[in-house]
């Protein structure tokens, strides 16, 4: 154990430990290198916040879609072709003039992969996980997200199967933009709830 000062051998560098586990499992046929490469490529290229942004933009321009999205997130994102690991039960929470939503996983790092890809380090780190449930307003200010007076902050701790996406408020002055242009305005942080647009 790392806490044990009697540990006889030096801990192997992380690169060698990862390779050791990969090699052991590949040799046994439990996993294969091609699928590893393929998974990495998928999340490096096809799965990321641009997916969530398309969902958000669609909800902004299509009220019926927005209603379906809020009623059954999983089904509504499937309409746009999104689903897969960590997307089996998607819940969308909507920011309004009086409510601001922010998402966390205090126990590990649950995150809506099909819509946002993999979480940034700060989302997985002790400061965010420990603080945002206790002092969400201080965390939001620290991250540059100032809230108007009178807004209720709702924190969502992803502790079971649901994975949360925040539906940000459509920015003022965006009336003339088309759906594709709107999608470009939507940031990852606004869909976690630590930024407003």
């Amino acid at each position: 154990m790392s806490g044990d000062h009697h540990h006889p051998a030096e801990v192997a560098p992380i690169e060698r430990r990862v390779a050791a586990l990969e090699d052991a499992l590949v040799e046994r046929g439990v996993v294969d290198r091609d699928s590893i490469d393929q998974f990495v490529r998928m999340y490096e290229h096809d799965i990321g916040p641009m997916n969530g942004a398309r969902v958000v933009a669609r909800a902004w321009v299509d009220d019926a879609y927005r209603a379906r999205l809020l009623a059954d997130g999983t089904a509504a994102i499937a309409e746009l072709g999104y689903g897969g690991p960590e997307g089996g039960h998607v819940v969308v929470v909507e920011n309004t003039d009086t409510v601001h939503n922010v998402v966390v996983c205090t126990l590990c790092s649950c995150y809506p992969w099909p819509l946002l890809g993999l979480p940034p380090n700060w989302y997985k780190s002790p400061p965010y996980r420990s603080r945002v449930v206790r002092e969400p307003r201080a965390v939001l200010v620290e991250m540059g997200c100032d809230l108007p007076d009178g807004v209720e902050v709702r924190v969502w701790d992803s502790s079971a199967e649901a994975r949360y996406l925040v539906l940000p408020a459509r920015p003022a002055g965006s009336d003339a933009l088309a759906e594709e242009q709107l999608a470009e305005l939507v940031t990852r942080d606004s869909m976690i709830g630590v930024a407003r647009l």
Partner: protein
Amino acid sequence: MDGIHDLGGIEGFGDIDPEADEPLFHADWERRMWGLALSTFFAGLSNGGQFRHSIERMDAVHYLTSPYYEHWLTGIATGVVESGLVTAGELERRARGAFPLSRESRVVSGSEAPHDAPGRREPCELAVGARVRVARVPTRGHTRCPRYVRGRIGTIVRVDPPSSLPDLEAHGDARRVEPSYCVRFEAREVWGDSAAAAADAVHVDLWATYLEPVEPAERA
């Protein structure tokens, strides 16, 4: 278990430190580890409860001082060693050095899951609007009931479809499929009056096993 991973509300970790233009992976080993982890999930090497608990059992200081994907490495390596697929010795030989694993589980059979506490053998069925109290009883095993809401009273705002209780699936062959509930807790109820604005709330998704109904007359 009351492990260091159960971070909600713990103070002293400092500022949030977002990295500008953060890459998806910071090094090739993170990339390999992530793809490897996903491959092991698809290969059925562990369920969610087993995987998470294999990380929760890391040494607390190791957990807090290692990069996130090292948690995944340590947890998955622990799982394959515990299942007998690979020996710790093989991993150390291949890595040419020590390969820290997580500590062994304190629960052999799931017998310490919270549903075995007296009077709690049948999970309650509840509806939106119901007032519930979170069980106070800690477990030595895996649970998805965060410590910061233990003993607190909240209101159900969403009923989620039945799914496998992690407290059981992490520790053996027993399974129980039951609803989970999204429970809204007022900030004041959880953190006291010194907490943020009274209007604020935190929502936690909790399996039925963790909850007991609160009588209308009962005070917080």
